[in-house]
């Protein structure tokens, strides 16, 4: 068929649909959808105007209408002013008291509308205000190209929930953005260090990558205040500091003297109060043997030595040693901890989504190896363990520690 024929056919469909819009709304909306991809500016505006007064009390109609509006918006022939009016038609549907209807409409916005990230983000807020279903945040941004919106969500949630905010639901999407445009994501992350109250959020996000933190370059932080804040926050982060260490260590090469000194002070403090010799070893592993780095290391070595001396002084008497005077309580604590972990493992085995459920569970009651019936080889039992470095200050005084984190 030629262009003229197409145009004529579309016109027929538009007219036919308009005629049946009152009597058979759903069918009419579906018919509109069939020609929307090739519709001209005028046709689009005609359709938009004709469906404006259509009610959306019926869930299917609301779904179809919102789908049609998404497609009209997506059409390259739609002008800005017109698309804005289409978005205005979607808003009342998202504000409906019928949450099932709202969910269907939102589904279209999430999966059937490409681009228009700013407007979609606005609609997301309307949806959340109405339904409070924050679970949609998990993959809502997956189709976005600009990471600024997901960062905006995290900032706003962090403002309310503080350090206890879990960003697990965003981690896949952030990772997705990272693989698409590292620079944009890095820029968002670093930008958080411009605001004192979001420094810890930045670290949370940086640390949320799968196996290692996002390799952001803190030297890209321009001001000394930003660099100092990044040190403060990373050094206060309660776990996985071993993984964050390489990121923060680059600041020893900062052009600001005060930043270098602050990094030394904070690491020395962490060595003395939190991680002790383990951290010193890690720092040594990550820096060079240059004169500058040796100089950088000196106060850290001193902190480690001071800690060992302090420990020795403490160990010189048994009066305050819990292994001597609180033995029953220590045993109780670790026995319960062991049991709790065992229960969690058991639950994980039953949980089909866990990798542990795929393993056949056999208990080796004696011995340090096992032999499979179908195989002649004897396999040693390897110690399977995972560990994360935890700042010991977190269990020295958990309440005060958390208060401090929240106040950062």
């Amino acid at each position, binding site marked *: 068929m030629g262009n003229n024929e197409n145009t004529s056919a579309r016109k027929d469909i538009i007219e036919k649909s308009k005629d049946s819009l009152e009597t058979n709304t759903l069918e009419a909306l579906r018919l509109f959808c069939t020609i929307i991809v090739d519709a001209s500016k005028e046709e689009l505006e005609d359709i938009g105007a004709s469906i404006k007064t259509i009610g959306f009390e019926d869930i299917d109609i609301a779904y179809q209408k919102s789908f049609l509006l998404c497609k009209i918006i997506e059409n390259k022939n739609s002008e800005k002013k017109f698309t804005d009016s289409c978005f205005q038609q979607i808003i009342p549907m998202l504000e409906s008291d019928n949450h099932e209807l709202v969910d269907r409409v939102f589904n279209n916005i999430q999966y059937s509308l490409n681009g228009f990230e700013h407007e979609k983000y606005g609609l997301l807020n309307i949806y959340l205000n109405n339904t409070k279903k924050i679970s949609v945040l998990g993959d809502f941004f997956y189709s976005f190209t600009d990471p600024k919106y997901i960062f905006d969500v995290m900032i706003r949630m962090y403002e309310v929930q503080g350090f206890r905010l879990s960003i697990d639901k965003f981690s896949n999407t952030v990772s997705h953005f990272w693989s698409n445009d590292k620079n944009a994501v890095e820029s968002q992350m670093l930008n958080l260090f411009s605001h004192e109250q979001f420094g810890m959020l930045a670290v949370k996000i940086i640390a949320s990558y799968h196996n290692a933190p996002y390799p952001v370059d803190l030297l890209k932080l321009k001001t000394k205040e930003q660099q100092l804040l990044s040190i403060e926050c990373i050094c206060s982060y309660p776990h996985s500091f071993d993984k964050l260490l390489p990121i923060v260590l680059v600041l020893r090469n900062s052009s600001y003297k005060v930043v270098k000194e602050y990094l030394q002070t904070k690491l020395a403090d962490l060595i003395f109060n939190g991680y002790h010799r383990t951290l010193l070893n890690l720092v040594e592993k990550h820096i060079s043997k240059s004169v500058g780095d040796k100089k950088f290391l000196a106060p850290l070595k001193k902190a480690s030595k001071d800690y060992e001396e302090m420990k020795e002084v403490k160990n010189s008497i048994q009066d305050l040693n819990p292994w001597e005077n609180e033995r029953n309580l220590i045993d109780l604590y670790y026995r319960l901890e062991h049991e709790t972990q065992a229960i969690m493992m058991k639950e994980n085995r039953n949980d089909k989504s866990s990798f542990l459920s795929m393993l056949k569970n056999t208990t080796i009651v004696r011995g340090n190896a096992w032999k499979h019936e179908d195989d002649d080889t004897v396999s040693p039992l390897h110690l399977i363990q995972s560990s994360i470095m935890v700042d010991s200050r977190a269990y020295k005084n958990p309440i*005060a520690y958390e208060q401090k984190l929240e106040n950062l």
Partner: protein
Amino acid sequence: MDLKNIVVKEYLESLTEKNELNYIFPILLESMGYTILSKPTEYIGIQEYGKDIVAIGVDEDGIKKRFYFELKGGADRNISEHNFYGKDGIQDSLTQARYNDFVSAFPKFDKLPLKIVIVHNGTIKGTVQSTLENFFVKNTINTISFDRWDISRLTLLFSKNLFGAYLLTDPASTKLFNRVLVNLNATDGISNDFIALIDLIFSKETWKKSKNLARKWQLLFESVRLIAFIIYTESKEYNNYEIAKRYLTHLLLKYWHWILKNKLEEDDIVLGYFNQYVVLYFKVLVEFFGRTAPLALLKDGLYSENGGRYEQIGYAKRSFEFIEYFTVLLRLVHFDPKYINHHEAHQQIVKVILANDVSFRPILDIHSVAVLNVINLLIDCNKIDDAKSYLSRVLNQIKYAKEKTDFLPDANNSIENVIKFNVTGIKPVYYSDSTSPLLAVLMEYIALFDMEEEYNIMKEFILKHDIDLGVFVPHHGINSVSLDLRSDKENDLEEQLFSKSFRDGYQSELRLTKMLNDELDFQSFKEKLLKRKKEFEYHYRTDKAGYPFLRELAHIYFKTPYFPDKWRNINLECNLTT
């Protein structure tokens, strides 16, 4: 097998420091009926060769004599050429003792025959032995004789006169005592064997008033001191004075309970013996804090580097227990009228608290005892602002923990419950946090300090979380209207306080509302407390006898919350009079 002799010999051999023998030997002499005129401690800085102890007693031959005892303990306990010859050697000491008289006002002291005895809890080398015996023979005249008491002799004397006379009189108590020593570091608290042994000793005889103190009672008191000293020396062996502290506290409170029970708190002779025990207890406490306080002053000094994750409970528990006893000692040392030093007391407690910031985070309701001890000490040091600041921070921590983790200190005072809650996230059935005596007391302190802002914050918090406030009040007060409700009518308030966790009272509700649901304003709250001032008043026999700190120790040891007179009698000029 004579278990008694083995236990005694092993114990005597274990005294490896000179001052340990110096302490225990006079106890033996007193139990043997000697009158001691001077002890080693009285000669600090003065050279009195061969006269570590001067005593009067009846010798084996039935003749009353004056005795000079030269004690050789510690490194010198085994006699050899090394410590026999030369200046300050044993031979030199004996010669000095022989020719330098001791001056005493004891009737006819100079006329009594003299016996010089070398006492050592070890053995003598064969070659030196004959030299020494030759020396004895050559220097013995009618009025002067010599003797040597070694480990074998001491074992016999201690077994017969002291251990055997009262302490280890039967196989049951001997076994108990042996088990106490063997298991001294095997339990966290006090072993049941020790409790049974002490109960056995104090209940063996019934007190009867007599003109002179019967020998059996002297032996009882000496035995108690001996037990304490043995535990103290054994604790030293374990390099763990905490053992001595807890065992001796138990014994101290049992001792005082026995005195109260027998109405002997005004008996000077009995108190004389009790004082000897108190001196030993005080010495142990001073030594314990002498070792631990420098550590506690370090940042997180009371935190154990080896405790691991348990320290999220252990550190706080240890810190509060440390503060409980430390405040008692600071009072004893720095509030003694002779050596008064409020500044030092204030500095010490503030430094410990600031170095160990878990001191602001009670995890058991009974930690109220430590919190009150700190606040009252600061008040008595005239540091009201510091007291208010400490109170504010404690309240802040309690509030924050409840809001963030639903944790309120366990009113059942079970540290095990706190551990279970902490590890599993599930509150055990017996975990009690719907009522808080701790918060009730702290609210009364808020009124005392006139802290209206804190009152309003805490009131909102308490009402929001529906926490009941209740202060424990004994039935026994002077103005009591509930005397009939006493469940233990045989023992008065103090006899109960010094023997168990005191429960013979009622929980006095403290509401922060009026007319059912209207919130109570600060002024009305203060007025309500003013009316309660006389709810509990009591005249303590313990205070009258001059030992008010014993009551504090009893509250600490038996985990009894303080009674309202502990804070309602505090009078600050700026409050409660409005």
